[in-house]
């Protein structure tokens, strides 16, 4: 079994798909496909690309903050001049608990969307060659790093056409995004806890809350205690073992049952609220 694991690791480490152009790769643990919401690209417009991940049962990949272990998907794009790909628009994560350790990420089918800015100089009738070097870590109990170069050739047209094959997946990806403007929250360090105070309004009907910090080294990865204080909701986290200094702010994704996820931007009272004296 150990030898099999090593062989699997070596297979996964090899550059899958490097030999010839391909838009998808598949291992026993994970299928990865580079997809586009549109079958054509319009000059000067934005378009959604995505990495469609299909996890084998019990396997998962990671959110931007992977939690106690793991690594997020890393993408390195090679695009024609004038084209720009944004960072992954991370869907709200799930919590995976392995004993005392917590990880944040995805299982099942998930689409990691990336916004593409199409060059205004793209000529209708030509093809755009999109190449991405993707690196990931997929884990069950054991972890396997993977890497693939995926490519997609898309025609430029005066108008973008929706590709029906991926319509549902992109719609689901939009629904999985934290919605709306970030809630304005305040944060403070209280002994070995970090307390985040959120306006009550948006959250009052929430069935169950969980919250995930985008940045590491501030809060531990255990779920927060949730309580009402005055007209605010308090999320009380254990301070991270790796906390070194009070940051200016902490960005959170708040996951609710049967309601879309939300964002919060929590400013630390000890740093952000102290205004600098005028010169």
């Amino acid at each position, binding site marked *: 079994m150990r030898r099999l694991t090593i062989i699997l690791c070596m297979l996964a480490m090899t550059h899958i798909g490097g030999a010839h152009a391909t838009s998808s790769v598949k291992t026993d643990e994970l299928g990865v496909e580079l997809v586009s919401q549109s079958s054509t690209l319009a000059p000067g417009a934005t378009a959604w690309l995505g990495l469609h991940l299909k996890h084998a049962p019990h396997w998962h990949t990671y959110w931007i903050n992977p939690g106690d272990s793991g690594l997020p998907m890393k993408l390195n794009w090679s695009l024609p001049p004038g084209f720009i790909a944004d960072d992954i628009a991370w869907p709200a994560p799930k919590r995976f608990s392995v004993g005392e350790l917590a990880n944040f990420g995805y299982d099942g089918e998930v689409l990691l969307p990336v916004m593409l800015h199409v060059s205004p100089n793209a000529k209708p009738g030509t093809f755009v060659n999109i190449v991405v070097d993707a690196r990931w870590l997929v*884990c069950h109990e054991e*972890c396997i790093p993977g890497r693939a170069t995926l490519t997609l050739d898309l025609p430029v047209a005066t108008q973008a056409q929706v590709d029906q094959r991926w319509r549902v997946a992109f719609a689901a990806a939009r629904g999985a995004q934290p919605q709306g403007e970030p809630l304005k929250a305040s944060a403070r360090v209280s002994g070995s806890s970090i307390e985040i105070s959120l306006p009550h309004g948006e959250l009052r009907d929430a069935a169950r809350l969980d919250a995930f910090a985008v940045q590491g080294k501030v809060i531990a990865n255990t779920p927060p205690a949730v309580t009402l204080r005055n007209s605010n909701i308090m999320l009380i986290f254990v301070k991270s*073992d790796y906390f070194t200094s009070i940051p200016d702010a902490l960005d959170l994704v708040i996951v609710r049952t049967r309601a879309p996820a939300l964002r919060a931007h929590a400013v630390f009272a000890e740093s952000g609220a102290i205004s600098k004296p005028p010169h």
Partner: protein
Amino acid sequence: MRFYRSLLVAAFASIVFATQTFAAVTIGAPAPDFSLTDSNGRTQTLSQYKGKTIVLEWNNPGCPFVRKHYASGNIPAQQTAATAAGVVWLTINSSASGKQGDIDMAGAKAFVTQYHAAPSAYLFDRDGKVARLYAAKTTPHMFVIDGTGTLRYMGGIDSIASADQEDIAKATQYVPQALAELKSGKPVSVTTSQPYGCSVKYGP
């Protein structure tokens, strides 16, 4: 309101659970003592090395991140340099029985030989007691303790969280940096970093 109260109870229960199982160690505080058996069947304690600088390295030979830092020669080189300078380097394997990285004494010796590794000792912690004592979360996960028994560094092996050997040269290697600073009497510049790697394979 009753709903929030139940939420509160549930969430607090999980926090209490977390703090009971993981006793966090703190930079600047004494590193807790422990006693483990090494790959030669000898008992090794932290306190027997009082007066010496000690490195603790959490290890799992099956973990791709451990393999990254062994196959590249990074950890073996750090071990060789550290032990040559009088530092005690204790490699600790906390994989529970039957989990990935659960090797026996012969397996540990073969691992050390295979990678030309040079730890002072390779220790077994199958019940995860010492890993929990230090809140070790990943492999690798590193700790540096000075001659007075004070914890001076805890966290990742280096500054680039990845499984790729090619990133090692670009990364800051935190343990050699901390060891050099301690040796020259300087304050340790990076005392904590987020560890990265596989999860420690704790038992039930």
